[in-house]
């Protein structure tokens, strides 16, 4: 209330020191031995605990499975049995007798196709459901019911429809991963702040500009949450689907190993499946991190 008494001079006088402080901050910190040691210590603090835990698990496993009458092979046995598969993942003896690289790459191709389709259709449907109240009321109950159907329950239906294993597997990936993408996109679109809609209204953005310039960036954190859940589900579904449809693929490799009682090969395949799933998740998370930079903070 004492506005006239406020002297605008101090506000201006303060500015130069603020600029100075910023400049000091932006200066790159000088490299020093203590800093390198600190970074090294930081890395060690992250890497050493999982290493110790893994070593302990392997040790317990070794001890338990070494006993007489153990049904599963110990880790030393697994490595000895599968040494050829580990050292040469690229061999190709024709037919289904291929290295693990080829099995994994076949599975990844199916996932890539089904997941890409699910991403495009999922974001489009999610946008529709998020934007239109009518579409939400009409479609949301259907989505809520269908998303609870287990992935493999779709397989017989898709085999009946496509009469071929390859498109059926891709369809199963698609139908498994689409639901979290739709639902998260819809939530993201519904949560676009009114402020951004007002800005768009004042600027008279047309629907296409609104979609690309406001909706997608604003809903990006939600969309990527959906995409990340989706990629995880795709990878879960592909292994199960391939066990049933056969052909080249990591799921079939596991099933084939079981039929030939090569338990060690199953274990090796599980390790690969886990690592690939982890890497897929990190890739989507990494893309999300880059794309949604600045969106989260307002």
């Amino acid at each position, binding site marked *: *209330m*004492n*506005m*006239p*008494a*406020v*002297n*605008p001079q*101090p*506000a*201006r006088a303060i500015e130069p020191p603020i600029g100075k402080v910023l400049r000091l901050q932006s200066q790159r910190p000088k490299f020093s031995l203590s800093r390198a040691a600190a970074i090294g210590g930081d890395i060690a603090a992250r890497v050493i605990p999982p290493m110790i835990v893994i070593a302990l698990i392997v040790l317990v496993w070794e001890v338990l499975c070494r006993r007489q009458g153990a049904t599963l092979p110990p880790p030393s046995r697994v490595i000895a049995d599968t040494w050829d598969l580990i050292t040469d993942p690229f061999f190709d003896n024709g037919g289904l007798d291929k290295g693990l690289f080829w099995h994994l790459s076949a599975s990844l191709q199916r996932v890539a196709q089904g997941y890409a389709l699910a991403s495009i259709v999922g974001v489009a449907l999610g946008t529709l459901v998020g934007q239109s109240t009518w579409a939400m009321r009409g479609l949301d109950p259907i989505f809520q019911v269908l998303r609870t159907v287990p992935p493999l329950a779709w397989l017989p239906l898709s085999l009946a429809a496509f009469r071929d294993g390859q498109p059926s597997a891709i369809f199963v990936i698609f139908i498994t991963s689409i639901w979290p993408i739709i639902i998260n996109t819809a939530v993201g679109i519904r949560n676009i702040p009114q*402020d*951004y809609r*007002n*800005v768009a*209204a*004042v*600027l*008279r*953005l047309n629907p296409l*500009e609104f979609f690309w*310039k*406001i909706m997608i*960036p*604003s809903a*990006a954190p939600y969309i990527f949450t959906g995409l990340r859940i989706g990629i995880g589900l795709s990878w879960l579904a592909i292994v199960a689907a391939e066990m049933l449809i056969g052909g080249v693929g990591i799921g079939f490799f596991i099933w084939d190993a079981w039929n030939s009682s090569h338990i060690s090969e199953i274990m090796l395949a599980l390790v690969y499946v886990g690592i690939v799933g982890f890497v897929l998740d990190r890739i989507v998370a990494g893309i999300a991190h880059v794309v*949604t*930079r*600045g*969106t989260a*903070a*307002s």
Partner: protein
Amino acid sequence: MTSYLRIDHVDKNFIRGGAETKVLSDVSLSVEKGQFVSIIGHSGCGKTTLLNIVAGLTRASTGGVLLENREVNDPGPDRAVVFQNHSLLPWLTVYDNVRLAVDKVHRSTKSRSERHAWTLHNLDLVQMTHAKDKRPAEISGGMKQRVGIARALAMEPKVLLLDEPFGALDALTRAHLQDSVMALHQKLGNTVLMITHDVDEAVLLSDRIVMMTNGPAAQIGEILDVPLVRPRKRLELAGNTTYLKCRQRVLEFLYERHRFVEAA
């Protein structure tokens, strides 16, 4: 009677769950070109609703808004708004926030390089060129509001609508920004409609102050002309009798005749 901007017998009712609340009742106001008009009133009196009706973001229940004798119903860049909470898009840099508006509004009239220059020119007007590559999260509240003003000015609006633009700022920053807005108004001659709840701000900046009664069914209680010559200097006005008289009138209106009634 022809004025530049005319708010003509505007009523606004909100209907929620069958219950109807009258927010604005028979509000009429004329603003001449180049005038700086403030609307002041207690919170909840419908000032922002009135501004939104002028902006086209809300429809009036009856009555309408005329700009240069044309009725306006939809939002548009000819009535650019500086929002209370800046409303910058956090994923765009300062430059890109302004450029988005420039590209949209001047696409057909300016070439690419002209639009670039126009964006920089408007950032320069609010002294924000130094932060053009920063994102909104990296600059202060006052700076964000400056960018919001630059974005609105870049649209070359017929009427500039300010919705409590300094409400969220500390006193020093606010004074600094008020001076900037005064200087810009002096330089560009915009027609400005500003919502405020700060008496000193209203008297310092405005040619006319529109005082609103308390809601529900808020009306224009009184309109006060501020006959102070421009450019106005904050320090010189502190002891100016006209300034003090105007201030007194507004204070009396707000705190004696239309005291804020606490909602039970």
